[in-house]
């Protein structure tokens, strides 16, 4: 039912993304172009602008990995020809030469095939002008201001669905977006609202402060076992919280791991940190599948 990957209408880069056959035709072209960017940016350390086009639950055993510099992960490097030979110095890279669209991939132990979904992005921006919060609360419909409770205006917009805390110093915190770009767009919209209210608002130092993602490994995890072997990173107190708190050192991410196999990752400033952290934890969790 799906068109072969190596058809002439599809650029050659899709040879590296066999799981694209899972996508519908409409998404495929978009995904192909974006995955090209993905591969190009693989070499950069910052990958703030890329979005993974894949749905979260994939069981094909592969993942588009945007983390760079980690040699244990399968690297997708842009090759010149359609048939790329697996490089001998990277024993764990995908056997790219043997890809045909319809045959399932041989499972590779490192690749999880699961992509964590971003749930929340917290960002800050400096509007660089003093603000009259009372005036903002009076003139804006979507603002609430209760100085006795909190010293900032709480403003909300519908698209992207986000909330902002606007302080009288001109600093603003934007929360609730599901991607970095959405967070930036939302912050710009808030700045525009403030501008329209008559303040000389600018848009300085937009920074992503925190990213939260979640995913499901689909098998139960023995938390007692995990805390025994990884006790220097884990904290599991069932009397206080049902999940295990895993503080990964590299990248510096905190993971909440639950017995149902659901994992929450937080503390990231870049999307690649989240993906890298998940790829690091997945083999560890697989080791604790059986009780």
């Amino acid at each position, binding site marked *: 039912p799906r068109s072969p990957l190596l058809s002439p209408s599809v650029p050659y880069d899709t040879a590296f993304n066999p799981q694209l056959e899972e996508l519908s035709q409409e*998404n495929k072209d*978009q*995904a192909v172009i974006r995955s090209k960017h993905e591969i190009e940016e693989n070499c950069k350390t910052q990958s703030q*602008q890329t*979005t993974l*086009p894949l*749905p*979260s*639950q994939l069981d094909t055993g592969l993942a588009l990995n945007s983390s760079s510099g980690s040699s244990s992960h399968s690297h997708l490097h842009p090759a010149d020809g359609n048939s790329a030979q697996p490089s001998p110095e990277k024993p764990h890279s995908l056997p790219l030469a043997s890809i045909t669209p319809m045959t399932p991939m041989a499972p590779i132990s490192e690749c999880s095939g699961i992509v964590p*979904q971003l749930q929340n992005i917290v960002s800050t921006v400096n509007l660089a002008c003093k603000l009259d919060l009372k005036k903002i609360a*009076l*003139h*804006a*419909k*979507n603002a609430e201001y209760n100085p006795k409770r909190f010293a900032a205006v709480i403003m909300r*917009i519908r*698209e*992207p669905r986000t909330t902002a805390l606007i302080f009288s110093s001109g600093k603003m915190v934007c929360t609730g977006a*599901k*991607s*970095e*770009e*959405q*967070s*930036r*767009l939302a912050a*710009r*919209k808030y700045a*525009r*609202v403030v501008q*329209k*209210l008559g303040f000389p608002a600018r848009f300085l130092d937009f920074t992503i402060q925190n990213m939260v993602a979640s995913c499901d490994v*689909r*098998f*139960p995890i*023995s*938390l*007692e076992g995990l*805390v*025994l072997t990884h*006790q*220097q990173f884990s*904290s*599991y*107190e*069932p*009397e*206080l919280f*049902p*999940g295990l708190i895993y503080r990964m050192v590299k990248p510096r991410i905190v993971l909440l791991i*639950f*017995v*149902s*196999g659901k994992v929450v990752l937080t503390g990231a400033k870049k999307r690649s940190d989240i993906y890298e952290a998940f790829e690091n934890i997945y083999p560890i969790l697989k080791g604790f*599948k*059986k*009780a």
Partner: protein
Amino acid sequence: MSGGGRCPDCGSAELVEDSHYSQNQLVCSDCGCVVTEGVLTTTFSDEGNLREVTYSRSTGENEQVSRSQQRGLRRVRDLCRVLQLPPTFEDTAVAYYQQAHQLAGIRTARLQKKEVLAGCCVLITCRQRNWPLTMGTICTLLYADLDVFSGTYMQIVKLLGLDVPSLCLVDLVKTYCSSFKLFEASPSVPAKYVEDKEKMLSRTLQLVELADETWLVTGRHPLPVITAATFLAWQSLRPSDRLTCSLARFCKLANVDLPYPASSRLQELLAVLLRMAEQLPWLQVLKLDKRSVVKHIGDLLQHRHMLVRKAFRDGTAEMDGQGQGQGLGDGDVGSSSLELPAGKRPASPALLLPPCMLKPPKRVCPIPPVSTVTGDEDISDSEIEQYLRTPQEIRDFQKAQAARQAAQSVPNPT
């Protein structure tokens, strides 16, 4: 006697250095004439070494034990004595408290936190020596909130870099079960409810072990599981007389608090036992339910390892092959026991998964569509204006606010 000086008045050589309060004076011991005197007042720079140093900048804090620290240490010792801990525990707990008190964040913390800190140190000591002390017990002793306790506990473990092992379930079972007042007859405990301690302990341990194997313990508070297991053990040792007794009544009899999740744990444990019973041929024909299975717990526990293996297929392996229509409906507890023709064949194995994975999801989270937002799109004026009030709306809003203020400021008619 100072050398070389003579009193100007009487000419005596007996000059004594004496201080009149803080003023140095050279005085003639014969006639009392003051020959020379020091300066009573000194300048600020003169006083360099004589100036008083504030306590916080002195080393006194490190040399002395501050009053709040003394109070805290006394609290730690009292806690250890109340809990009847071995004497070595007290020293370790005291050492932890002193260590914690060195940290700036703790020294300047509120008294409430320092109180709770005493409990944390005792708890950490007990955990490291495998003494089964629950956080609930400490919080009750300290009259502290579990939230406050948990915050301080996590903070101190992190700051001191301590390795705190998990609560030892077996020891907890032994201590907790021994606290049940069911081992001797009393006015509140009739003879038919009295049970032998050893028998009850061993059976409870087996049930808790069974719960652990079947994913009922991971991620949950350990105590309610043990309460449920103790109840089942007690019931099963004399089912004819005790089946009529409910869990709540049992805890009241035994003079033990009933933790809220215990009834839910009880149901889960009974469901597991029922599944196991379906694998025993002589129990299959009886078509057991949650009440009648209690009578056979002894048998089920005797063969529990084999029965668990037969009654449950590996949930983890099953997850990989999910979506292939392999009778996932079997995961539904109790359904197969109704559908089975009696004695024909044992029920097909159920998935061995934690209860949270067996329940259907409360709400299906839709996967958000792929976002094509770049963050640099144009923002139309109309979109922004939808969030702004028109001048008329502003006037109306201000009027409404003023009216509300006026209404609030009117004194209430008494």
